[in-house]
């Protein structure tokens, strides 16, 4: 599964994937301080979207997306119920 080259494409695809299947999607962050990189993966076990970075400015972008997805999960106005 390839890594996305641009943050904007990754963020758009990640949010779209979450809205398609909110109960199946998980967001995984992996930080390695010794290598100085941060990876983010958004997957529903069928489609896997990944982005990695070693740039400080990307930390803020990743944090915003993570927070946004967390707020969507916790919000009561989600679409489908069982």
């Amino acid at each position: 599964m390839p890594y996305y080259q641009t943050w904007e494409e990754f963020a758009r695809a990640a949010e779209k994937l979450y809205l398609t299947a909110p109960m199946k999607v998980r967001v995984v962050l992996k930080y390695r301080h010794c290598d100085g990189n941060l990876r983010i993966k958004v997957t529903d076990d069928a489609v896997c979207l990944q982005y990695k970075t070693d740039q400080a400015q990307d930390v803020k972008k990743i944090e915003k997306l993570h927070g946004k997805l967390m707020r969507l999960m916790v919000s009561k106005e989600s679409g489908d119920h069982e």
Partner: protein
Amino acid sequence: MVLLENDSFLTELTRLFQKCRTTGSVAITLKKYDGRTKPVPRKGHPESYEPADNKCLLRASDGKKKISTVVSLKHHVRKIGVGGWDMQIARLANVREHWLVGPILGSMYMNV
């Protein structure tokens, strides 16, 4: 897997980041949670729980130690989001000369 309260989770998460400064990685997983505490019943047996729509499960691990917490209120989301992993990365990143993340994240926390 240790299930913790939100504040204890943040404390333990800080410890995980500190332990992994020289070697290893910290993985944080976020997933929507429907509140079930029992396994999915077999066919023909009724589901015996009330589905919740406003919770998410946060897990963290350094490969050996695993911790988790359930986040269910919007103001908790802000606390976890702001005081959580990105702050740890900011603190660690300050150690490396080429990561200039400290001032940016510092101003972000003041604004929340």
